[in-house]
């Protein structure tokens, strides 16, 4: 498996969005996701969608990469939307059978649900694809710095997060090696009923867990040997720098929000 295909992978390019400060992008993403929950008319959803298209364009990342970000979730989206259609009521009823019915409200709600899913996944893909994971972790810890005063170990959590992210490709590779090894020993993964398949999963996860524990132990030793002491002060190689364009980006977010409020109030 190519690590590029993993959801949330960074794609190194030189776009205007790549150049933004990680904190700015993180704030924008959170802000945008919150805004999405205030949009359910044609005008407001369209307005936010337009903003997302602009972000996609500015990221210089081909649209098909975003599609790859959504693809793993397609079934989740379809099933949730189907439930929403069948089990909610209100408005005009087109069809019903026992508990289930298709109503106009149900359809609208499920459309909004699909829209939110897609838009939120894509917005977070814009963030993770244009921001190296370590910078993202740094942005987290920087934005959460105030929490230090109530004794929450923000730095440790950020390091933990970045190491966890850095191990995703390693663990993926390992999982594929284990699957291959089990296949070589005559295991067929796509056969049998649910129970048989569940039975097949164990021989993958046990070695994977053992490997991960071993990794973490070795990593802990290696970190210690390179002078890491938990909680001790450290300097930062990559420094986050807030520049003019980051402030402009924030102003644009304010404009986006003002637009949203106006559309909600006057065009509904």
């Amino acid at each position, binding site marked *: 498996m190519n690590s590029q295909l993993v959801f949330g992978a960074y794609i190194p390019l030189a776009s205007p969005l790549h150049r933004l400060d990680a904190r700015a992008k993180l704030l924008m993403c959170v802000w945008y996701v919150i805004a999405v929950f205030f949009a359910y008319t044609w005008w407001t959803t369209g307005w936010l969608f337009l903003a997302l298209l602009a972000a996609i364009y500015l990221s210089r990342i081909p649209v098909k990469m975003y599609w790859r970000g959504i693809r793993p979730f397609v079934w989740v989206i379809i099933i949730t939307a189907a439930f929403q259609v069948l089990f909610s009521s209100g408005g005009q009823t087109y069809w019903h059978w026992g508990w289930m019915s298709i109503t106009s409200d149900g359809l609208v709600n499920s459309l909004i649900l699909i829209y939110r899913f897609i838009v939120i996944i894509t917005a977070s893909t814009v963030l993770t694809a244009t921001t190296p994971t370590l910078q993202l972790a740094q942005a987290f810890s920087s934005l959460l710095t105030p929490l230090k005063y109530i004794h929450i170990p923000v730095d440790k959590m950020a390091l933990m997060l970045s190491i966890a992210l*850095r191990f995703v*490709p390693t663990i993926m590779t390992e999982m594929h090696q284990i699957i291959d090894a089990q296949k070589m020993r005559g295991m067929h993964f796509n056969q049998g009923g649910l129970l048989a398949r569940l039975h097949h999963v164990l021989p993958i996860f046990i070695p994977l867990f053992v490997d991960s524990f071993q990794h973490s132990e070795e990593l802990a030793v290696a970190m210690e040997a390179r002078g890491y*002491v938990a909680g001790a002060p450290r300097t930062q190689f990559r420094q986050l720098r807030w520049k003019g364009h980051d402030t402009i980006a924030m102003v644009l977010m304010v404009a986006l929000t003002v637009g949203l409020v106006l559309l909600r109030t006057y065009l509904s």
Partner: protein
Amino acid sequence: MNVIEAHDVSFTYPGANGTALRNLDLIVKAGELLAVIGQNGSGKSTLVQLLSGLQLPSTGLINIGNTEVNDRNLASIHQQVGIVFQNPGSQFVGSTVAEDVAFGLENRQVPSDEMPAIIKRCLQVVDMWEYRHTSPATLSGGQQQRVAIASVLALQPKILILDEATSMLDPLARQQIMNLLVNLRQQGLTIIMVTHHLSEAEQADRALALNNGEVLAEGPVHAVLSQQKLVQQLELHLAPGEHLLNQLQQLGISTPDRYLTTEEAVQWLKQRLNLTQ
């Protein structure tokens, strides 16, 4: 000056049956290149862990410089000793090669603006500068080992310990790293190198042969390596020169008694051929 002094050191892993290392005495002088050889499970990695303070001796005493290895002095020990581990895959912290080299510098609180120059120099030394933006997880085993070496060099240790750190490298890369080590030694770095390859060990100043947790032989490298029985017992990969001389010997051709490096073996052979022409 002695940079490492170990007296009567023994070590047992918690919960293990046998002792991994027994009654070891070792002195390493500043600027020396020491090769540690021995079969799998003979205690080489255990020795490495003890010398870098990652494990503390069960009995006995180890001094690094003027610092005794104990749980109060670990920070100072880690500052003096740099270690490259056997398994490169699980020693990376950074999500890119450059960030990984930076990790140790961040711990040392090196100012941010001094880091890029140090990182560049160290990655160039191991010929990995062009990979600085790559994720270490996607590198080949040999490339990972180079990055691991760079990450340790960045910390400018007084003593560099490599635990089979060239095991995944191809012969050319292995020789390049060997040359690098020889260079670093000339600049005054003390180096301890665990290896299964005689062609590497023969370039050291001294050799320490371990067997079953005990010292089998210790001394100037050529004195240790010329003990044929010992070399066979340890099942080391012979250096090409040694291999050739062994074959000649089995054909009944008399060869020098002492250990010859590959280079010396070539010289010797050249002389022999000239004489018989």
